[in-house]
């Protein structure tokens, strides 16, 4: 029932498992051994369950881009957004982030996460010295707001253990927050997604929130229901293998 410290597997069992060695183990991904009295194969990857809850009132979240990596970052505060992040932040298109050159593995959330809804995903991370998991999603009833996690270090997270985070909203800084008709791709508007013109501050910052027509922005297509405060998501990363 709790979010953290979900210890379904004993630590001693996990340690014993990790000490097993197997010569000539299959690289086919089929880890079922046909040999009698054969030790379980050493895993070639780590497997994580990622559970996400949309905490907003009326901001559907675009399909998550989740990557594992040992270097790089999907954004850096006060630095310009990459074109890949700009695509996600302005249109919800995660495809460029999923194929980032520094990604060791990637996972497409594939589905929009409505407000109040949850999504559970399985992320596979190849064995590497330093392992980070990062993710990003667009708040689709905005011009270019994102949320996500940057460089969560899962290198030493043992099997059976979890870490839980809540995430902030960020402004990609690539599109002015005009809130005007035709500029917001989500259901509040159905407007334009990606546009390569950068008519905003051109650095990533924390998001200042939306104003909306109900709060006096007369040209805004948003209403009071689209307002949000931090945090935007709850994310639990559980190592299952």
């Amino acid at each position, binding site marked *: 029932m709790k979010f953290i410290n979900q210890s379904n597997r004993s630590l001693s069992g996990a340690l014993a498992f990790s000490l097993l060695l197997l010569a000539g183990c299959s690289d086919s991904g089929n880890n079922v051994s046909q040999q009698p009295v054969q030790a379980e194969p050493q895993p070639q990857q780590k497997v994580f369950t990622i559970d996400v809850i949309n905490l907003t*009132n009326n901001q559907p979240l675009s399909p998550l881009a989740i990557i594992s990596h040992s270097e790089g970052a999907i954004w850096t505060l006060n630095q310009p957004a990459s074109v890949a992040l700009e695509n996600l932040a302005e249109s919800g298109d995660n495809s460029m982030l999923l194929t980032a050159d520094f990604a060791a593995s990637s996972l497409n959330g594939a589905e929009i996460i409505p407000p109040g809804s949850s999504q559970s995903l399985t992320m596979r991370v190849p064995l590497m010295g330093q392992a980070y998991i990062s993710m990003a999603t667009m708040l689709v009833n905005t011009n270019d707001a994102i949320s996500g996690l940057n460089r969560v270090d899962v290198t030493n997270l043992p099997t059976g253990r979890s870490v839980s985070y809540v995430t902030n909203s960020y402004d990609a800084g690539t599109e002015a927050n005009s809130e005007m008709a035709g500029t917001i791709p989500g259901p509040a508007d159905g407007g334009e997604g990606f546009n390569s013109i950068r008519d905003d501050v051109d650095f990533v910052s924390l998001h200042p929130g939306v104003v909306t027509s109900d709060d006096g922005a007369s040209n805004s297509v948003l209403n009071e229901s689209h307002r949000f*405060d*931090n945090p935007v998501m*709850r994310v639990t990363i559980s190592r299952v293998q």
Partner: protein
Amino acid sequence: MKFKTTLLAAMIASGASNIHAAQLNVTITNLTQGIYFTPFVVAGHDDSARMFATGQPASSELQAVAEGGDISGFVSLLNSVGAVVVENPAGGLLAPGSNASFTIDTGDLNYLSMVSMLLPTNDGFAGLDSWSIPSEPGVYTVNLNAYDAGTEANDEIVNGGGAPGVPGIPAAPGGDAGTNGTGVTDIETNQTVHIHRGVLGDDDATAGKSDLDSRVHRWLNPVIRLQIEVL
């Protein structure tokens, strides 16, 4: 800060015995400028129960707190599941700029939770969901966010409506609300417990959509800071 503390607490707790008597000295600080908090209900409990969970519908006991500040149902429920309960540690409303302290002995119960309604809101509450009590003595800081219980439309009409299912806001304790608002909305879009989007308010005390004052009744998270000394 909260995440690091929580993670550390989890790491420490996992390496220790499950059974550890814990006395906690807790100070609750109102971080807002214009929001009052109704009587808190605080519980030490095990992992079989939670007072609320984001993304899940509120219980009727939580609804009673979030819409009207009534903790009686929650106290009964918590007692029925073997929780250690502290009621109303601030002795009434916790005003802006105020704090309140209390002591709770959680015994062998490993989790601390609490809720309190934000006034003036329709169904806003501050909450702590299953904080893992560290076995390591020390002073811990935990920030609480404002949630929307998802049980009542945020019409922002101050009409005394505090019973579950009755529209409206029971009171504006600061005496600084307006009248004759036409209502911000009659729709509750997200009917699960979620982060509160804030109040809209307006600057017209006798008309407009909202009876709340957009210059006074506003906040950004976090809204409560807990200082928890684990002895």
